[in-house]
């Protein structure tokens, strides 16, 4: 009777009919998924190369003003040239460094500030209106203040990036601190743990995923701060290249810098997202 639903295979394993049906269902599902995935990729490539191709043709036939809009072969030509001359990478490096500093410092300072506010409910109530004002304010507007206070250069660019990221980090992380299930706190308190123990053992680890995801948001915000900062003071960096290209009316340079920014910012975001995945997988 068992023969009809299960047959013994040559290697001694017993194969059940249910297993076979499950394997077939999985195969059908995977095939359908692969097929729809292939369609999505095709559409994406079509949009990418279609628009680049159209842009190239429009540029070469002078349908658009080449002085302003340039066209892809000119842009990539310039990039390639600068890469070979070694004049591109130093700019990329400076901007990447500033952005890294901006979002790491922003996340760190924001978390520290949130910890201080969590620690003292009194301070939380006192600082509340100031934080609301600072949060509503467009932080890049503080750029000129940083320049006169810190001096034109790396410092004020990083300060701008920091200003953009730190307040929102504080708010998000503090909210996450407050929303930790009180019962976890109770567990520590029942063992006689004090506020520091509660913070170290419950509040911080429970908010870790939030802090990591703030890191991801801050990558984007930090780019805003850094590029604006470079617009204002820099003598190197991708933001500087854009402003320089604009001033000498070399829009091929502007567009190629934008292209590099898009590329590097995406890579950086993906790196943080990958790290987030690794860190939060166990949770």
């Amino acid at each position: 009777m068992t023969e009809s639903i299960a047959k013994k295979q040559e290697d001694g394993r017993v194969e059940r009919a249910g297993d076979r049906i499950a394997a077939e269902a999985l195969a059908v599902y995977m095939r359908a998924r692969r097929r729809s995935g292939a369609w999505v990729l095709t559409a994406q490539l079509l949009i990418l190369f279609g628009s680049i191709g159209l842009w190239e043709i429009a540029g070469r036939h002078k349908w658009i003003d080449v002085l302003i809009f340039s066209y892809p072969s000119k842009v990539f030509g310039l990039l390639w040239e600068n890469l070979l001359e070694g004049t591109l990478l130093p700019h990329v490096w400076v901007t990447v460094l500033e952005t890294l500093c901006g979002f790491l410092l922003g996340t760190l300072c924001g978390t520290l500030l949130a910890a201080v506010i969590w620690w003292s409910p009194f301070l939380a109530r006192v600082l509340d209106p100031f934080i609301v004002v600072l949060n509503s304010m467009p932080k890049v507007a503080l750029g000129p203040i940083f320049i006169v206070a810190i001096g034109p250069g790396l410092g004020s660019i990083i300060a701008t990036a920091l200003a953009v990221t730190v307040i929102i980090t504080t708010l998000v992380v503090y909210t996450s601190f407050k929303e930790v299930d009180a019962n976890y706190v109770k567990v520590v308190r029942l063992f006689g743990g004090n506020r520091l123990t509660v913070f170290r053992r419950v509040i911080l680890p429970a908010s870790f995923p939030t802090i990591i995801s703030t890191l991801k948001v801050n990558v984007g915000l930090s780019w805003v701060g850094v590029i604006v900062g470079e617009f204002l003071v820099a003598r190197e960096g991708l933001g500087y290249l854009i402003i320089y290209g604009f001033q000498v009316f070399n829009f091929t340079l502007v567009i190629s810098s934008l292209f590099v920014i898009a590329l590097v910012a995406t890579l950086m975001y993906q790196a943080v997202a990958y790290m987030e995945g690794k860190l939060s997988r166990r949770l």
Partner: protein
Amino acid sequence: MSYAVEVLNMTHVYVTEQGAMLAVEDIRLGVRPGEFVSLVGPSGCGKTTILSVIAGLIQPTSGSVRIQGQMLSGPSARVGYMLQQDYLFPWTTIWNNVMTGLEITRQVSDETTAYVRQLLRQMGLAGLEDRYPTQLSGGMRQRAALVRTLALKPDVLLLDEPFSALDYQTKLTLEELVLDTLRAGRKTAILVTHDLSEAIAMSDRVIVLGRNPGRIRREIEIPEPIRSAMPLEARELPDFHRLFRELWQELLETEGEDER
């Protein structure tokens, strides 16, 4: 007579911006060493408040608590507390979770570590030390939480509906396990529950609370042989249903008084 837990004329008021709320009034309670006492009553009768006061988590507005004759001033290692759910830290392993209490009270030693390993074996959790709580079933998690509590060798165990979030089968198994462990260690226990049959099956004495404010209405001694039977057998014994109806009636009257 010396009590393991003694609550002396305890009254507690919760004060918020909305006003003052009298939660429990004039609670007097003595629990003998090794005794298992259950608190039952309608929701809002202050069961959890009483437990939190005995645990040292909240300072009562008036009155006091003595544990083995000593005045209680805050959480004590002699009193263990089991919450309604396991509340194992999901970000760390079972091992780190069960060691939490020992680490916080700085009692990690070869001896205590060996004791935790022994508890894990007893609870059928050996070999799961490196798992994360999410990888365990509800019953296993509650057992791990029990290990975390027992690791400190408390003399008194407070159980705040620790079986309420479990499915029925797991709940029955865990009742047996907990009672067995408590009896073997001659520990004193106070259980808060909504489940009347659980209260009768596990306890030596059941205390019925009324509400608004919470106060003790009645105490029922559980007679032999239900008292010394294990929970599962106890439910089969002839007197069990009589006791159940008696308690049920008492609770109905509590509700009735509220409406008047």
